[in-house]
Every structure is written in C-alpha cells, then in structure tokens.
C-alpha cells in the first residue's frame, strides 16, 4: 500500500507536484494517468525517496521508503529514465542489485527468464534496444518479489507483443494481491490495464476513482435527435427537464436514454428522423479532463512560418 498526503514538489519556481493525496491499494492495478509533464515521474521518485518532497509525505507499507530494511524486497520499481551503466552486462546489473539486498543469485536467472532476456544476459546493456532496456528494468523491479510494484511508463519502447505482456503481468501481479501502480500518458493503455485511476494534470489530482466511475462520469454520452420539427421537439424535451443542446438541425439530449426520448416524442405525435446514442471515447474524456492542464500542447504553425519555407 502506498499512501501520499499533501505531496508537493517544486523545482525552483516550477510547481511539478501540487498537493497530491492518494492511496494505492493492494490487489488491483492503479493507473497513474496524465499528460507529459503532469508530475507522474516526480511523484514516483518521491515514493522511492529519491526526490525530497517540498511538502507533504508519502509512505510505503506504513513507513517511508528510506526506512525499509530491504527495499528491493518490499518495493520493486521501474523508473522512467534508464538507470543502467551501458558497459555492464544485464546479469551483472542484476547481480549487484541482488547482492545489495541479500537476494540469492538463483533469483537472477529466474527474472531474466521471466522477462525473456536469458539469451542476452551476458551482453552489455549499452547494446540493448529501448524495449530490452525496459524488460531489464522490469526484471529489476521483480527481483525481490516485492509486494509493491511501481512502473513508470513501462510500455515505452515496447512492441505490441511486449505491451500485451506488460499488461498481463500488471494484472497478474495485482491478482496475486500485490499493490501495483502503473503510469502512462495514454488513456487507451490504462483502459485495458487499470482497475483504479489517478488522473493528474499540472501536478494536481483531477480524478481519483475506479475505472467504471471514470467512464460513467467523464465519458459523456448524449442522444442525437433529428426531427423535421426541431423547435417543437426541443421545447417538449426541455419541458421535461432534460438538457438539450441545439446544434443546427441537430439536438443533443442528455438525461434520458434513447428509448425514453423516442417514447416521449412519439407520445406527443412528433416525427423523428434520427435517434442515436453517441458516446465519447475514453481518450476524448481524458483529453477534455486534462485540456486545461496540458503543458506542451501543439499549436498550428503560423501562416508566415509556412509561407517562408
């Protein structure tokens, strides 16, 4: 279990993490979602005691990470930036880590096998692809069979097969009753992996809820209604207290399902040309939620800039 209370981090004038309070529970995958620069990696570094919080605190299993007697056997982490020396072999990297926490050497072969790096274990990691580096990072995280696993953007650089593997692994770890925190900047990734969501933007918590709640609350849906008598239909539906948004000849109705609307309109003897349930995707919902907090949004290139090319 990871518990953060009022966690805050500033880098000079930059507020990277702003008063985050959350609990990561065991037995489920908690997705840590937010656009780039939202403060996910910084938060995870504070969980591991690598960065000092400017304010607030975070504990793992009830104590601060630094007070863990055998941290690798309590928390396994894959951090964002590669934490590898290019000149060291994968096996030697795992060897010194295992030695530092009194983990038997037999476990090294086990994790190498688990992440599929057994064939390249004695190669220098400088020659590894991004995906192989990620796999080694995951091997490090699992070395001590920790009850708490923290993975920062684990699917970065992985091929589709690798992505599926990480997804399954995260679900398995949670299924074994472990605490699993996985960050991503892609909603589509989280939708398939996470049971619970922590959504952050510009360091602030935007949503802390189950995946199902998130879908219900944010993946807004409406019923599209077209009728030759738009004005009358609109008046009727508004009269019933429904939310109606008129877009030209189209009405967007919220507050009642398509069947209910059809019955209302039909009951009033009005004709309908279209009655469709429109559901926005999770990706859209996430974009809307974080729209104000995207740090590096893209802007269309100015006209002059294009002309001078």
């Amino acid at each position, binding site marked *: 279990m990871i518990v953060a209370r009022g966690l805050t981090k500033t880098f000079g004038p930059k507020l990277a993490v702003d008063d985050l309070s959350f609990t990561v529970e065991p037995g489920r995958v908690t997705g840590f979602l937010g656009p780039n620069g939202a403060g996910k990696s910084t938060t995870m570094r504070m969980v591991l005691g690598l960065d000092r919080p400017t304010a607030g605190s975070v504990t793992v299993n009830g104590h601060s990470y630094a007070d863990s007697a*055998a941290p690798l*056997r309590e928390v396994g982490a894959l951090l964002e930036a*590669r*934490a590898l020396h290019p000149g060291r*072999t994968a096996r*030697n990297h795992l060897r010194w880590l295992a*030695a*530092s926490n009194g983990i038997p050497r037999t476990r090294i072969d086990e994790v190498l096998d688990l992440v599929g790096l057994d064939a390249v274990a004695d190669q220098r990691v400088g020659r590894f692809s991004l995906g192989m580096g990620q796999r080694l990072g995951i091997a490090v995280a699992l070395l001590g069979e920790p009850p708490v696993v923290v993975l920062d953007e684990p699917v970065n650089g992985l091929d589709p097969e690798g992505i599926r593997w990480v997804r399954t692994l995260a679900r398995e770890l949670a299924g074994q009753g472990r605490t699993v925190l996985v960050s991503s900047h892609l909603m589509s990734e989280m939708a398939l992996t996470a049971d619970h969501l922590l959504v952050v933007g510009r360091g602030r918590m935007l949503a802390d809820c189950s995946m199902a709640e998130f879908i219900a609350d944010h993946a807004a849906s409406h019923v599209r209604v077209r009728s030759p008598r738009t004005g009358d239909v609109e008046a009727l539906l508004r009269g019933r207290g429904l939310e109606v948004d008129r877009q030209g000849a189209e009405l967007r109705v919220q507050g009642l399902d398509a069947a209910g609307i059809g019955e209302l309109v039909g009951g009033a003897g009005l004709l309908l040309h279209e009655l469709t349930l429109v559901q926005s995707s999770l990706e859209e919902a996430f974009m809307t939620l974080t729209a104000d907090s995207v740090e590096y949004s893209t802007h269309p290139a100015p006209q002059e800039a294009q002309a001078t090319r």
Partner: protein
Amino acid sequence: MIDTVALNPDRHVPGARRHPRAADTLHAEWLKFWSVRSTGWSTAMLFVLGAGLTTLVCATSAAWLASGEADESPASFITWGLFFAQITALALGTLIVTSEYGTGMIRATLSATPRRGAVLAAKAAVLTGTLLVAGVVTAFAGYLGGNWFLDREGIGIALSDDGVLRSMLGSGLYLAGLGLFAMAIGLLVRHTAAALSIGLALVFVVGNMAFLLPGTWGEWVAKLLPGNAGSGVATPVSFNPELLAPWTGFAVFTAEVAALLLAGWLVFRHRDA
C-alpha cells in the same frame, strides 16, 4: 476478496536473508566497481605507469646518478612513476561517483540502498581498498624494476634504507587519499569531465604553479595544497626540498580530503537523485 500479499519479504524469495547488512552494500559496490571495463583498464594503467615509468627512469638515469655529477638522490627516483599513476587514481575516484550520475545509475543505487551514508561508506571502502593495494603493489614492482638498474651501477637502495618502506606503503596511502579526494569532487560536481578536470588541475597545475607565488604565505599555500602535502609520504627523498615532512604533509592531506568528503556528503545527503 483478494488475498493480500503479506509483507514478510522472506516468504517471497526463498533463501533471502532478513536484513541486508553493511557487508551487502559493500559487496554490491564491489561487484558494481569491477563489472565495468574502465576499472580494470584504469588499474592496469596505474600499474603500468607507476611501475613501468619508475623502472624506465631508473634505467636511463642510473649511470648519471652513479657518476657523481648528479645533484639528486637515487632514492628520489624509486617511486618516480607515481607522479603519473596519480592520474588514474583521480580517474577511478571521479568515476565511482560521476558515472552513476551520468548514466542515471544513482537512482538504482539509492533505491536499492536508501541509506545514503552506507552507499558512500561502501564506495569509499571499495576505492580505498583497491587503490591502497594497487598503490603498494605498484610501488614495490617499481622498486624491484628500478633498483635492478641502480644495483648494476652500484647505487642500489635497500628496503631498510631510510624512508624506502615508508614510501612503498605511502604510495598506497597517497593514491587512496587522492581517489577519495576525486570522489568528493565528483559528489560536489557530478559531471565526469568537470570533476576530473578540477581534480587534475588542482593536483598538477595549481599544485605546481603555487610554488611561483611570492613570499612566505605563497610558500605555505604551495606546501598545503593537497597534491603537494600528500605526495611527500610516497617518496623516500623528495625532489622538492620545500615540501612538508612526509607524515606531517600526509596528515594535512588527510584532513583536506576529510573536509572535502564531508562537504560532498552534506550535499549528497539530501540532494534529489
């Protein structure tokens, strides 16, 4: 209801010991130190430069030293190669810290061992042990090689001669101190090129230039600079008569290294990794 994994770490990794100890941190740092090629290369260079150049300079100067025209003692030459071995000691000391910052390894290190004091102590121990042994072995090899040529000219030096054994041990001590000195600079600066340049400049450039400073205060500044204060212990008879007495100088050097390490530790202790 899902069964929660209990927090007893022993249950999950069969055979794992309950609490890692300082010895485990030391073991980890030792494995880390020797599993990159630069360590082996640097240590080999230390030996080749230290013992090789001592032998070479004795071979080429033996006849002159024996001729009576010489205004230097043969004993000054018996650890001559050490001057160049200093470079590799500085490099090893710098890299043990800066390579971790350059590669991001520091995050792996501190998440495996969050007690930063234990990490520093283990790094210092690995570095000190390696340089002490390498320094003493190199000095003895240089003595054996160089003295063979001096002996042929009848000006051989016995191990029992004044300061000879002291200089053999002193070579190890001085190189170990120099490694720690570079490690402290690494902690303060964190970038390999910057830290190494500062270390080399202080020992080789500033150390020599300082003798040009005027007056008694200039003389004292020169004497007290780390390279000048510390290196006296590593030669039976120094070329430079202005240096502090061997053990006095080494005590000054040790204090300087300790102060710099303390500064490095204070910065490292709370810094974001």
